[in-house]
């Protein structure tokens, strides 16, 4: 089983690639929903729209907390209803800070300073430092138990490519989890080394899913 691994259990933190409906590993999300886990923390740019993928995982009761930059859209009704009822926790993070926290997690950097959000409500409670006459806030890295990634092609070494803007958070998230699970549209014999976007060192398992999106 693709999702059969020790890191995937109640209370796990999961990095979920994609931006809106683009580059989201929906087949992997569906597989995780079927496990019936509880209290997951999901790190994702959005909180899921419509009645599929992440929105369904949230509806199933598996998710205790979302870490997002934009947990709201014209059809994010499932998340918003649970949020309004106080049944799901939310940490709102600026989009670039979210990407950098994950990048830092994958690169072994525990925290960093950024000017983003200084002086705003999203800096509340965070350490402030001044460098060269400018204020910065400290942000902590994010590391996860599992990363779920959607890629265009992959080879048996785990090297990956992405298509157009379906790349988004996927290559960053692939680096920052104990176990990285990837759905690829097509398994290929070998990704030409110069075209590799995610080197196979970051990838643990792959599943070929075809062009379903």
């Amino acid at each position, binding site marked *: 089983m693709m999702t059969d691994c020790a890191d995937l259990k109640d209370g796990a933190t999961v990095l979920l690639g994609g*931006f*809106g*409906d*683009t*580059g989201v590993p929906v087949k992997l999300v569906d597989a995780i929903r079927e496990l019936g886990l509880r209290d997951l923390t999901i790190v994702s*740019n959005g*909180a899921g729209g419509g009645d599929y993928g992440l929105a369904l995982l949230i509806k199933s009761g598996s998710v205790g907390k979302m870490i*997002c*930059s*934009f*947990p*709201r*859209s014209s059809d994010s009704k499932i*998340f*918003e209803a649970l*949020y*309004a009822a106080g049944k799901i926790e*939310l940490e*709102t*993070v*600026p*989009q*670039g*800070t979210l*990407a*950098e926290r*994950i*990048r830092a997690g994958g690169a072994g950097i525990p925290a960093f300073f*950024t*000017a*983003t*959000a*200084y*002086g*705003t*409500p*999203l800096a509340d409670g965070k350490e402030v430092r001044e460098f060269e006459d400018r204020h910065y806030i400290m942000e902590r890295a994010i590391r996860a138990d599992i990363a779920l990634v959607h890629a265009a092609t992959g080879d048996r070494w785990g090297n990956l490519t*992405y*298509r*157009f*803007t*379906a*790349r*988004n*958070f*996927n*290559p*960053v998230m692939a680096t920052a989890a104990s176990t990285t699970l990837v759905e690829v549209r097509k398994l290929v014999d070998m990704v030409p080394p110069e075209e590799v*976007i995610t080197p196979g060192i970051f990838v643990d398992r792959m599943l070929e899913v075809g062009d379903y*999106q």
Partner: protein
Amino acid sequence: MKLSSADIARRVANDIAGGSYVNLGIGMPMLVGDYIPDDREFIVHTENGMLGMGPAAAEGAEDWDLVNAGKQAVTILPGGSYFHHADSFGMIRGGHIDISILGAYEVAANGDIANWLIPGPRPPAVGGAMDLVAGAKQVWVMFSSHVSKSGEPKVVERCSLPLTGVGCVNRVYSDLAIIDINDDGLQVIAMVEGLERAELQAKTGAALNFAPACAVLKPLELAA
């Protein structure tokens, strides 16, 4: 007279130097991309991972792997590139984007901006706004109307809504005027024909200075 949103967008586009890297916010700023003057090229960045963004995809030709930050199907121009989110925001945070153009609820005379949250029951969503205002070399704000529907000024002494960033706005474009923000506060560099300075001041919530060479702001002629 007042400028239409298209007039404002055309004026903003005309003020962008050729060769600039520009990020256009969701909504009215996206219009700027429709009015790039024929005599220059500037490169549009979309924070979900593309430089060289082109026009919206034609109906029926949408490819949902190719979207902008507003999740609309778009196209890519020759010379464009794709990259992941950490690189995209490294471009922003690292000061590589020349101009970020956004909409806002309020802009203050000290350059503060509030454009992400009206407190209420819905979950707070910020997207890339805080990264853009803190990181771009220049931040320009577009207001389709100088005052709100109820007549309240949008350019104010201090923002009343939760801030997106502090001291970061360089210029405001509205249907009535173009206002620069610098160490001395607000400086009007152009205003529409027939508007008295006192009228513009009455529609603005902070003291205005007027540039000695304050220009008349009129719709630019459409390119032939």
